[in-house]
């Protein structure tokens, strides 16, 4: 949950960073020799600044920046995690990663999940949001209930679904009861089906988030527009297609971005339902499960970190490309719009 939000705000962030970066790399306590935009800074103020930002900086640098930097560093070593890394291997970890068919498979699974999430969840969530945006009784309750799967932890979701989807589990039994017994199959282990099973679970878990986002976007569209179109004789679907959807564009594009990043970094659900070994034979492994399986679980810390770096750069490149070509029109105005 948090991860996605973090990424999202990042979009907004990139615009402001450009404007905000004025000072050099100087830390907060440097003497106020330069410009003084407002009042000069006295010692008491400097002390306040140091006291109020110091602890945050320490925690942040120690537990975020330092580990990230170390991931990049360890990636160049053949290292089993004991003592300091000594066997420098240059880029050979990276070469190994891309020569490993299992990783390439995982990468393809990630790519498939990215595309399928967008294609399945996007249209479905738009339709549901349009539906739930109509005035009706029980609207609030429905909106809350749609969101329930999103709040339940991945572990609970994974555990429950893997119990239900077992060969002799509740889902197959349910299919038989409603006369769809011919559909019955091995949902988790069959490599032809597993990725679709995963997509079903992902859709179930995350579509509520998309629906809520789109509903918020729909709230922002003034009623006057649709009313005017209705007076001009436009049908309901014409109004949605010509007016609502285009105006929902920015929300859709942000959601697609979040969904893409989330799909690239997918870990919990796959790892819980399929585990580290089955996921690659069932065709649901992702870069993150590959990282854990071949990194820490195999005792190859250097290699695992190299995988983390690859995962990071793939996400970063995807994010940059997306921002450059898709989000540009949403952010174009904001860059000149000042800090906040």
């Amino acid at each position, binding site marked *: 949950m948090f991860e996605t939000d*973090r990424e999202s705000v990042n979009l907004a962030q990139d615009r402001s*960073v450009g404007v905000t970066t004025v000072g050099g790399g100087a830390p907060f306590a440097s003497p106020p020799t330069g410009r003084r935009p407002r009042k000069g800074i006295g010692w008491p*103020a400097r002390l306040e600044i140091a006291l109020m930002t110091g602890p945050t900086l320490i925690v942040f640098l120690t537990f975020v920046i330092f580990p990230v930097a170390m991931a990049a560093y360890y990636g160049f070593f053949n290292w089993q*995690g004991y003592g300091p890394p000594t066997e420098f291997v240059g880029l050979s970890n990276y070469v190994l990663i891309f020569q490993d068919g299992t990783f390439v498979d995982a990468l393809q699974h990630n790519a498939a999940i990215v595309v399928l999430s967008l294609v399945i969840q996007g249209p479905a969530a738009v339709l549901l949001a349009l*539906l739930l945006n109509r005035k*009706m009784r029980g609207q609030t309750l429905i909106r809350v209930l749609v969101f329930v799967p999103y709040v339940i932890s991945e*572990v609970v979701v994974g555990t429950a679904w893997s119990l239900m989807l077992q060969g002799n589990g509740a889902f197959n039994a349910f299919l038989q009861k409603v006369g769809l017994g011919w559909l019955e199959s091995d949902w988790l282990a069959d490599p032809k089906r597993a990725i679709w099973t995963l997509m079903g679970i992902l859709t179930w878990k995350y579509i509520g988030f998309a629906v809520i986002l789109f509903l918020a976007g729909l709230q922002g569209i003034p009623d006057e527009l649709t009313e005017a179109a209705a007076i001009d004789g436009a049908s309901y679907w014409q109004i949605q297609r010509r007016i609502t959807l285009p105006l929902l564009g920015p929300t859709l594009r942000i959601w697609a971005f979040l969904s893409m990043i989330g799909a690239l970094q997918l870990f919990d659900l796959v790892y819980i339902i399929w585990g580290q070994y089955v996921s690659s034979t069932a065709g649901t492994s992702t870069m993150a499960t590959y990282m854990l399986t071949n990194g820490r679980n195999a005792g190859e810390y250097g290699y695992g970190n190299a995988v983390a770096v690859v995962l990071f750069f793939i996400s970063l490149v995807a994010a940059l490309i997306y921002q450059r070509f898709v989000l540009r029109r949403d952010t174009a105005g904001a860059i000149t719009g000042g800090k906040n």
Partner: protein
Amino acid sequence: MAATAVAARRPIRASRKMAWGSPAVYFVAVMLILAMLAPVAYIIIGGFRTNAQITVDPAGWPAPWQADNYLEVLTGDIFWRQVLNSTIVALCTTAGVVTLGLMTSFILARYRFRGQGAMYSLFAAGLMFPLTVAITPLYILVRSLGLMNTLPGVILPQIGFAIPITIIILVPFLRAIPDEIQEAASIDGCSRLGFFWRMVLPLAKPGVVTVAILTFITSWNSYLLPLFILNKEGAFTLPLGVQSFASQYSVDTAKVLAFTSLSMLPALLFFSLFQRQIVGGLTGAVKG
């Protein structure tokens, strides 16, 4: 941007009297709700069955209903210890993030000093790094700090990774407080820090609530970091507990279902209490 949207967020529903819509719309809505809730209902109801019942008919109704599974879980100490661990971790993470985030955001929003922009950019850059990427070095760091199998070993990194979003959400909130209020306060003899306590905290409350709820739920559900840091059962949080319970009692499906549904309850309760803020906060944070 990010937080102007939060500030401007409206409660999602704005209706007083509502007409009944068309039956087709209700039909789709009900089907949707059934699809969303059926798995949840399956977990809860399944906990009231016996393994024999489940084996005979995996998708059946409890006949008779029996609460033994739930009672067994509730009277054992494993479940409660994990609830306690999860609660401690989530509360400490939230408290830490809100405290550190508020102090730093206050400085970034209302002080002018050299390096301010650089500091803001540094925190903002943190948004680029998901925990997944840094997980192995984090594990090594926590291990070398001697915090393996301790709750602070999970809490501290969680605080670190939640700081960027917190600052991004809170800074515009604090910046939006008009200078006049601060000037008036200082004329009335209020120091800058006094201003922080008396004016900023109350005014930033909506932003703080959003951040706190997001952090709490993220922490409550987090899996990857505890998986690396907590290896001893006594230190397990609920997600780890559910997973280990499920593999330990893999033949005792009914009991696993009972355990899983009990572990889901706190999050659902928390969600139903704060659903308006959660939904509003999410949309606000993302719409930015």
